[in-house]
């Protein structure tokens, strides 16, 4: 037994140190040297204060802002400490009720909007931190934001279009708009 115990113990210890400490620490050093912004969370700072991350969505509910996807994190939406989705199944009455609730809220906030509601605005994202919405979801909200801010819709349309992230290589992913970036740009409009 000792004949096999020594190789097992020594090899396990050696490979643990190599893959469990040397590898992640080396990766950290290289990542910090090569891509410090991304490695540290793609943070957005204003006056030396962290106001968010390009990659992590924030909760918006005011009439003056574009809203993101519904978030199922608890206790509050877009809770960075508890990523996750609703895990509601498609035939669960609770799921249909949740969508219905989101729909009614949206319709109330957008009385002039006659189009059908884009699906991503009434369904919870997988991470609960989805930073983005579809173009349809952004356009759907333009009238409301324009009215609340007293900005011409055409100006807002241009602003949304300036923030479109297209498919990678014209193929991968979906066209979308980063909600936090769009809203920060909105606040910067004079």
């Amino acid at each position: 037994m000792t004949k096999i115990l020594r190789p097992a113990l020594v090899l396990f210890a050696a490979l643990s140190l190599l893959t469990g400490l040397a590898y992640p620490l080396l990766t950290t050093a290289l990542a910090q040297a090569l891509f410090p912004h991304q490695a540290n969370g793609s943070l957005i700072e204003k006056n030396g204060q962290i106001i968010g991350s390009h990659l992590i969505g924030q909760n918006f509910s005011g009439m003056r802002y574009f809203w993101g996807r519904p978030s199922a994190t608890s206790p509050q939406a877009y809770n960075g400490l508890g990523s996750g989705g609703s895990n509601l199944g498609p035939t669960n009455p609770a799921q249909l009720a949740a969508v219905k609730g989101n729909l009614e809220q949206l319709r109330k906030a957008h009385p002039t909007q006659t189009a059908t509601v884009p699906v991503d605005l009434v369904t919870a994202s997988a991470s609960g931190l989805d930073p983005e919405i579809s173009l349809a979801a952004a356009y759907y909200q333009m009238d409301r934001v324009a009215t609340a801010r007293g900005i011409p819709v055409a100006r807002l349309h241009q602003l949304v279009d300036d923030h479109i992230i297209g498919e990678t290589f014209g193929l991968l992913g979906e066209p979308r708009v980063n909600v936090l970036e769009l809203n920060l740009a909105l606040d910067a409009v004079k």
Partner: protein
Amino acid sequence: MNTAAFLQLGLFLFVLLALAWPLAGWITRIMQGENPGLVRFVAPLERLIYRLAGIRQDEDMGWRGYAVALLLFNLLGVLAVYALQRLQGMLPFNPQAMAAVSPDSSFNTAISFVTNTNWQGYSGESTMSYLTQMLGLTVQNFLSAATGAAVVIALIRGFARHSSARIGNFWVDVTRFTLYVLAPLSLVLALAFTQQGVIQNLLPYQTATTVEVSHFQQAKLDAKGNPVNGKDGKPVMVDASTRQQTLPMGPVASQEAIKMLGTNGGGFFNANSAHPYENPTPLANFLQDLAIFLIPAALCFVFGRMVGDRRQGWAIIAAMLLMFVSAVVVETGAEQAGIPQLSAMGVDQHASSLQAGGNMEGKESRFGIIDTALFTVVTTSASCGAVNAMHDSLTPLGGLVPTFLMQLGEVVFGGVGSGLYGMLIFAILAVFIAGLMVGRTPEYLGKKIETYEMKMTAITILVTPVLVLVLTAIAVSVDPGKAGIANPGAHGFSEILYAFTSAANNNGSAFAGLSANTPFYNIMTAIAMFFGRFLMIVPILAIAGSLSAKKRLAVNSGTLPTHGPLFVVLLIGTVLLVGALNYVPALALGPVVEQLQMLSGH
């Protein structure tokens, strides 16, 4: 499937094969003991480890010695991961002061990561210290993958060698696969992920001051921090508001890379590859798809090279590809179709240039339907189990596809090593069935398949269905099992069936609504994971030893060729037949019923 979906699938398969082919040449050389120029500066480290450990590189083991070494090595892994979780509160690299994990959850996670399952009952960002993530979980991401690779290389040696009872040296196989295959690939991939936005640091969690104040309700807590219950027995809710958002940090990219390359699938965060810090862009997502399939695909070519007939590897991969592509087509169609009840309410689920449409519950905007469906099929064809969407919220048919792919035994590419050894067992079964039909002694690659091999084959093929069906039956019959169900009706049964299917086949993805972090599920799924892994590996090593000892027969006119379309069809037929016979009744009670309910509007 629209044009974009087919184009993306085509691009994926093209890049996959273009990368897997040269990688196969590399792996073959490494595992046959060569030291190509590139590795020479690591070779002294390899020799130093052998010297310290008293390992003789040229000492070949019989299958029993190989199996004992493997089991002991994996047992050490279980102990280490368990101990790290229990002691993490006292150890360094713990800026968030994470406390010790409970005994049953620690046990479950230890088994889960050692068996390459990476089922997760816990939520990473609020449970594990950075040290546990690195020295516990990342290590097992490497070593469980290397263990799987070692087993399949041993099995291939069983076919390639003759009149020898030896199948290789486990210590050397694990060391070389880790040092020369997994580690360099992981380092490159981790840096690519970081470039795309995956975080890699050892900072404490950051706090952002958000643009708007969030108003929400939370449970009222008493002085001890326990929720206060009202007269109706439910927690009392109070209004709260915050303008702060916690941004979790950590060494994510390094773990993410081996999580994919090793077909592990355990997320750093609870949302796994749906989390923007784990999988921030469509390009990162595409790389993750590739990384999951890369080594399993390359190993098929390694098989062809090592047995001296590359067509044999192509036949295996052709069978896998046909099943994979069919699954992608069904999955994409099911999710793109969306939920009829939502359309009836006035929700727009049509795909257009402005939106992905389809069933977007539990999906991310950047991935939409196409990237999500591809990822879902990749991760469950392979025994990876990473998710970029919440599988519990898939349409019933969209949930059936991943469930059935796992139930086939994770042989459509499958896990690192485990996919190919599982498929080779089905190949043995296929030649056996063909032999019965024409009344000849079956043979595969010049080796006679006899009673001993067939007994072992029967064990490996039956062990996971028995685990899945028996444990599911127990869980739906007892209160602690039923207590975990989140969704009512047929979907609730699907949640439990998915859990044990995923655990026993070492996938690790979940219908995550199921409350599985309870002593009942922690122990039951640990049983499924442990026996689903090692009751496969030991009989397969026995087959390897037995085959290795046999003489190699010459090909003659009565030999069934195992490299042509006929054999590919026979192999697919065998896999589907066994899977369907085992699981159709269970599937009928879950996703099939639910799909019919959804379509008929109930």
